[in-house]
């Protein structure tokens, strides 16, 4: 059953009036915020400054994660001749093959093999080892990068190199028409990786936006609580009075009436 409403009903008129009132209020708030743009910009800059301070202070205290990361790389060469294939198709084929390679490496057998070769049984749980190894394709390349992360720099290097060794064996077995070429062996990392967190620029941007937002929110609340007459529409709508005119605050220019 559908309920039809009378367009001219009192309820509808009230709803329309409320909708219109809300629209006017939002418009008024927007104008008020535009009036206060200088203060909003200052608040945003203060926010950005605080964000920048949050970036600088950890750097001054030399806060580090205590984890070492070592990276090894493989070059994945398709053995299918691509010279006759148009570039777009070649690109999609490469992306498709790289995705297949990543999927092949993301298996339990690979990680079990890694644990076995490095003798990590009983040292780490399986899920911990999953977190210690990450692999990705840098940009639009044929390269597969593998990172090992550990509190022991040598272990980090071994994780990366051993995983690459396993990948060299697994990928050709599971995926046809692809040749795996060692590209870069991991070395023992010298310094621990920096502590994780949002980027410096992101913190500054968040600080900027947060500063501006807070001041805008304060002004919006003050506006909504303001009981003073500030517009002709206000008088006309709230009191049903005609506004004959608005006289500006005067700057005296000259004497008259003499």
């Amino acid at each position, binding site marked *: 059953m559908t309920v039809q409403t009378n367009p001219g009903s009192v309820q509808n008129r009230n709803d329309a009036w409320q909708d219109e009132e809300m629209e006017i209020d939002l418009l*008024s708030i927007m*104008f*008020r915020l*535009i*009036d206060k743009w200088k203060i909003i910009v200052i608040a945003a800059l203060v926010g950005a400054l605080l964000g920048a301070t949050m970036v600088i202070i950890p750097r001054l205290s030399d806060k580090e994660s205590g984890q070492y990361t070592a990276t090894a790389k493989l070059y994945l060469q398709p053995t299918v001749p691509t010279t006759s294939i148009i570039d777009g198709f070649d690109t999609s084929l490469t992306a498709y093959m790289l995705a297949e390679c990543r999927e092949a490496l993301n298996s339990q057998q690979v990680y079990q093999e890694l644990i076995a070769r490095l003798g990590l049984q009983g040292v780490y749980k399986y899920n911990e080892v999953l977190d210690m190894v990450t692999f990705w394709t840098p940009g639009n390349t044929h390269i597969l990068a593998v990172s090992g992360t550990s509190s022991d720099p040598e272990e980090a290097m071994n994780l990366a190199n051993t995983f690459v060794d396993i990948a060299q064996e697994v990928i050709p077995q599971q995926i046809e028409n692809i040749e795996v070429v060692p590209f870069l062996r991991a070395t023992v990392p010298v310094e621990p990786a920096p502590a994780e967190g949002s980027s410096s620029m992101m913190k500054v941007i968040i600080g900027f936006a947060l500063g501006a937002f807070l001041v805008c929110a304060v002004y919006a609340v003050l506006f909504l609580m303001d*009981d*003073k*007459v*500030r*517009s*002709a*529409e*206000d*008088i006309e709508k*709230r*009191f049903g*009075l*005609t*506004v*004959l*005119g*608005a*006289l*500006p*605050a*005067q*700057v*005296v*220019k*000259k*004497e*008259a*009436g*003499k």
Partner: protein
Amino acid sequence: MKQVKLNRLEALDRVGAESLNAICSNLSFASENFKKIMLTSASAREGKSYLSVHILNNLARRGKRVALVDCDLRKSDLVNQYGVEGVGKGLAEYLTDGGLAEDVVYETNVPGAYLVPAGAAVVDPLPLLHSPKFTALLEELTAKFDLVLIDTPSVGLVIDAAEIAALCDGAVLVCEYGKTRRKDLAQAKRQIEAAHCPIIGCVMNKVSFKTISSKMYYNKALYARMKSGYYDQRK
């Protein structure tokens, strides 16, 4: 008729002058039905006297004969504020001591503009405002002039304005931009309506055109054209 001089009647800037023209035109349209118009406000110092004097000046310069009656018998500042020179008896003396209406109606240096000053301060002006002499004075002025403007105290402060409203044909409420509270304005409106005086309209005074919101609300196009020098062009 005695004469006085308005020594401190300041000319408005161009935007102000145009705004005043609009207000006076609207009042002129209304004055066909409203001869006795009172100006009041919700609270003090919102610009009633300022507006009254400028409306008097503006309409007189248009060729109308306009009288301004200062009915703020408790604390009038109009004479001092506008440097009115040559004032003798005022409304208070006329209502207490008697005499002729001509004794308190002064011709000003603006042709067509006449002034009835408040006179000496009165502690309790209500009996005077209730007196038949006051009603008779207003009737006499109505007969002689095209328009009678009555400057009253704030209706939110003392009841005098409501008493005067009962004798007027219409009222203009003056409110100050960013100062008058809505609840005070609502109370003032109720009080005037209780005196069965129709409210002709409201005038926003001391509007700041410096803010974008005020520019958007009041005479945006006029303001923009004035500032851009649109009306300065001479062909």
